């Protein structure tokens, strides 16, 4: 499975209706990702990063072309199958954390495991492990409102990682964080990528994130203008 393609995008186009016309958000995208990559879609706002991430995350479908994730062709997935793909194999990290506000940290991290119908004992161990990865074992009973931005994003990472997905999709994960917190978050994700061989795909225009990436895909006006493997430039903050 090492180095096998887990995401393949072929001639993909995504158009959105805009009044009577259509807006082309992605145009002729050809990309592939192998297991364990730490890659980022980089570009200015409106370049199509999030749209591409949403399609890979089976939250949206291409208008043309083909997107294949872990052997599933996104174009033809039913709602149920798409949900199953996300449930079992994908983790999401959002810019605004998207924690469930009335749940505790523990319950937020538990959520994906409940959907997977894991038994209580197994859930508990997995949750504590995930919180241990992000250094939040002392916050299990806190509610999101009681957490700082950095802590909230760490909970979101724990929630994405708790089920040990093959792919984690992170949309501007540091946009709402200061430099210090961003560094710690990215360091955590980098460690998880290394230790669990999880594929991370970012959508970002934040230099702090770009420094950590091992592959940078630049998008402009819905097209890939650069796809380069780089050496991580991350240094101790």
């Amino acid at each position: 499975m090492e180095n096998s393609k887990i995401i393949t995008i072929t001639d993909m186009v995504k158009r959105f209706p805009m009044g009577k016309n259509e807006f082309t958000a992605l145009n002729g995208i050809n990309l592939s990702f192998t297991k364990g990559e730490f890659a980022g879609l980089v570009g200015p706002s409106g370049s199509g990063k999030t749209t591409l991430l949403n399609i890979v995350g089976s939250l949206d479908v291409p208008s043309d072309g083909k997107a294949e994730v872990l052997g599933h062709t996104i174009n033809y997935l039913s709602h149920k199958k798409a949900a199953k793909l996300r449930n079992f194999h994908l983790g999401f990290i959002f810019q605004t954390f998207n924690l469930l506000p009335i749940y505790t940290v523990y319950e937020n991290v538990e959520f994906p495991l409940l959907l997977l119908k894991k038994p209580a004992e197994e859930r508990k161990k997995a949750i504590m492990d995930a919180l241990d990865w992000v250094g939040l074992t002392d916050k299990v009973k806190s509610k999101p409102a009681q957490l700082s931005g950095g802590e909230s994003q760490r909970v979101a990472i724990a929630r994405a990682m708790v089920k040990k997905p093959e792919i984690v999709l992170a949309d501007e994960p540091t946009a709402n964080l200061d430099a210090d917190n961003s560094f710690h978050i990215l360091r955590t994700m980098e460690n998880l990528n290394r230790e669990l061989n999880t594929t991370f795909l970012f959508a970002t225009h934040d230099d702090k994130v770009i420094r950590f990436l091992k592959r940078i895909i630049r998008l402009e006006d819905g097209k890939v203008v650069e796809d380069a493997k780089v050496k991580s430039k991350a240094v101790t903050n």
Partner: protein
Amino acid sequence: MMISLKLALRNLLGAGLRTWLNVFVLSFSYVMIIWHRGFLDGWNKQARFDTINWEIGGGQYWHSEYDPYDPFTLTDSHSAIPDNLKSAVDKGENAAILVSQATIYPEGRLQGVILKGINVNQSVIKIPTEKLKTDTEEIPVLIGTRMAGNNKLNIGDMVMIRWRDKNGTFDAAEGEIVGIFKTTVPKIDNGQMWIPIEKLQEMLQLPGETTILTVNKENKEIKQVEGWTFKGHDFLLSEMDEVIKTKKVGGSIFYFILLLLAMLAIFDTQILSIFRRQKEIGTYVALGMTRGQVISLFTVEGAMHSILAIGVAAVYGVPLLIWQAKIGFAMPAMADDYGLAITERIFPEYGAGLVIATILIVTITATIVSYMPARKIAKMNPTDAIKGKIQ
């Protein structure tokens, strides 16, 4: 489904005051509906019990011509007590009642009344006919408190009674009020005068004849008697059942308004939730819930208000309802105007069927009301929902 239940309970308890306000309104609906239905059932039971004891016993044989709603039938609706029922009448096990129209003149006024002759030794109905066994030379008359009150009659008062005998000849004599009884059954009281049957037979020149035979309530044997028709409880209490049924229908409007208020609260909460919790809905979808599961979660959340309301209603409703069932509900003096037997206090009766039916109705309604707005989730774009964009 178990996940939906678990998450819905978590969401509801997490929502705090908003949940508990809805739950309280719903619990109030439960308690009020059960109390009101229990009150009507208690009233019905008491009214049936009193009507059986005071008026109809185990049923009545009516002369075939007798129609209580048509006074013109009274002149012909009488005949000799049938042979196969006579011994029971003599033993006081059946109450023979002869019915006639008359006019009285209390304090110089003119008042139409129904004269009812009854065998004084009867023990079938609770009318205290033994009071009619007196030595008075006048016609001994027994009346109810309503009749006494309306005509300002007291024990020992004389009242002129005028009637027509079987030939249509008018006659008149003084009657003496020998007893006044208090009953919850207005039909044997309002406008009615009870006298010994032998006396009325003599007045009407109808010796040995009767209009109604009320049988003992323990008597289960119905005899076929020519010229007479047996009327059982189903028939004799049907009017009362109809009145209670009408009151229940009237009560349904009250339940409907109560339920409407509670359902509006749930519907409002659901609509608000679906607008305010779009980001949450998007997150659920991103984390792997199907749209159906999200709809199910929101529906269960709404419906679960009614389940929590059962618990809340039990906390304050059960003691309240038990207390009411024990002390009863005092009826106002004017309640007699209902035309039904009403005691001074009505003791509500709560059956398991009533409680289960109420719970089912409220829960099903709450589920439907919760599901309707939740369907909108199916049309949401998850990528917009994740960002909290109002759709």
